[in-house]
C-alpha cells in the first residue's frame, strides 16, 4: 500500500480540540481506519489519531469496565493502549488484523498484566508478535488486502443464542471454561464443544476472500 496517496492534509491542533461526533458512526470501515493509521504512522497526524481515539477509547473503556476493572484504572489503561498505538503505529498492518483487533490485543494484554497481575504475560506476547511480524515479512508478495470485519460481525450476530452467550462470557467477561461450566450448570465437555463449534463458524466467515 502506498500511504501517501491516501493522506489528507495534516490538521492543525486547534481543529481537533472540537467535540467529536463520529464516535458511534458504524459506517466507518476498514479502509477508513487504514487511511487514518497511515496518516498517523507516516505524518504523525494527530487529527487522524484523535479520530481513532474518539471511536475506540469508549469501546476499550467499556470492555475493561465489563471485566470489573475500576473506572480510574480503566481510564488509565485505555490511555496507555492508545499511547502504544501512537508509538507503534508503524507496526499496524491492515492486511494482518483490523484496527479493532490490534487494540483489543493490547487492551487484553494490559488487563492481564495490570489487573490479573501476571507480569510475565507482556514479554511473552511481544515475543509472539515479533515472530508473527517476521513471518509476514518473509511472505514474498502479500496481496494488497485489508482485513474486513463485516462478515465476522454478521457471523457473530447469527450464532445460536447459547453459543453466542459462551463466546461473550469468554471474551467480554474473561470466564474460564470451568467457571462457565459452574455458572451455567453445563458439563465442561459441552462448554468446550460449544466454543469449538462457535470458533469454527466464525472462522469460516473470515475465510471468505478478502
Amino acid at each position, binding site marked *: 500500500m502506498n500511504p501517501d496517496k491516501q493522506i489528507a492534509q495534516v490538521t492543525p491542533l486547534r481543529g481537533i480540540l472540537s467535540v467529536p461526533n463520529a464516535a*458511534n458512526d458504524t459506517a466507518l470501515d476498514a479502509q477508513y481506519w487504514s487511511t487514518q493509521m497511515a496518516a498517523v504512522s507516516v505524518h504523525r497526524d494527530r487529527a487522524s489519531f484523535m479520530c481513532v481515539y474518539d471511536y475506540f477509547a469508549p469501546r476499550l473503556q467499556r470492555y475493561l469496565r465489563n471485566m470489573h476493572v475500576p473506572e480510574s484504572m480503566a481510564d488509565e489503561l485505555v490511555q496507555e493502549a492508545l499511547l502504544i498505538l501512537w508509538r507503534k503505529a508503524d507496526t499496524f498492518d491492515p492486511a494482518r488484523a483490523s484496527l479493532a483487533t490490534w487494540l483489543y490485543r493490547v487492551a487484553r494484554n494490559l488487563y492481564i498484566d495490570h489487573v490479573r497481575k501476571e507480569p510475565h504475560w507482556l514479554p511473552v506476547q511481544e515475543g509472539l508478535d515479533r515472530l508473527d511480524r517476521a513471518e509476514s515479512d518473509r511472505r514474498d508478495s502479500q496481496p494488497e488486502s485489508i482485513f474486513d470485519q463485516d462478515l465476522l460481525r454478521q457471523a457473530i450476530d447469527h450464532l445460536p443464542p447459547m453459543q453466542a452467550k459462551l463466546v461473550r462470557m469468554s471474551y467480554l467477561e474473561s470466564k474460564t471454561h470451568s467457571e462457565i461450566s459452574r455458572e451455567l450448570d453445563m458439563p465442561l465437555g459441552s462448554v468446550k464443544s460449544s466454543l469449538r463449534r462457535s470458533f469454527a463458524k466464525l472462522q469460516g466467515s473470515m475465510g471468505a476472500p478478502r
Partner: protein
Amino acid sequence: MKPNHHLDDATLLSYSAGALPTALAVVASSHLERCKTCREQLRDADQIGGALMQQQRVGTPAPVARAAMLALLEDEQQGGPVTLSTDMVEERDPDRLPGALHPWFGNSMRALQWRRVAPGVQRILAKDVRGGDLMLLRIAPGSKLPLHSHGGNELTMILDGAYDDLLGHFGPGDVADLDGETLHQPVTSPGVPCICVAATDAPLVFSGWLARTLQPLFGF
C-alpha cells in the same frame, strides 16, 4: 520440527480471551512459540475479540479524557523518537526452554534442578501459580505409565524425548490438550528421557492424578 499435536480450539479461544488459567496459559504460550499453525489460529481468535469489543454500544469520550490524551501526545513529541525493541527471535538452541517458562523455571534445560519423586520420575513444581499447578516432568526412557484419566483440564507439552499413547506419538513441540474424559497410558520412547511441561487448572485432582499414576507403579 513442526508439531503434529496442537492446542484445542476451545483452549485457543480462551487464551485469546485472556480467560485461560495461568498454568494452562504458560504451556499454551510455550507451544505457540514453536507452532506457526496455532499462531495463525490465535490470530483468527483475536479477530473475534476485536469484533466483540468494537460491537459494544458506547457514547462519546469525555472531554477531560480527550484533553488528557492530547496532552500526552504533546509530551511524546517533545520526548523525541521512541526506539522499539528490535531484538530478534533467538536462534533455536536445544538447551533453551520456551520463553514463557523462563519466569518459572529459568531458561536452560541443563541447569534444571530436578527432584526425584519416584524411580524413573523427576519433577520440578513451579511456585506461586494461581488456580492450578505447573510442573516440569522428566520420565526415564521406555517407562510405561499406568492407565489413567485426568480431572479438569490438563495441558502437556513435550520439550525433549517422546511418548506414545492411544492419541498418537508425541514429540518435541507437541501438546496434549486433554479434558477429564480422556483415558490414556503414555509409554515414553527409548533413548532419551521424556521431558515435558504439564499444567492443570485443578490442583487437588491433579495431585490425585500424580499419586494415582505413580502409586501402583512405584508404590509411594
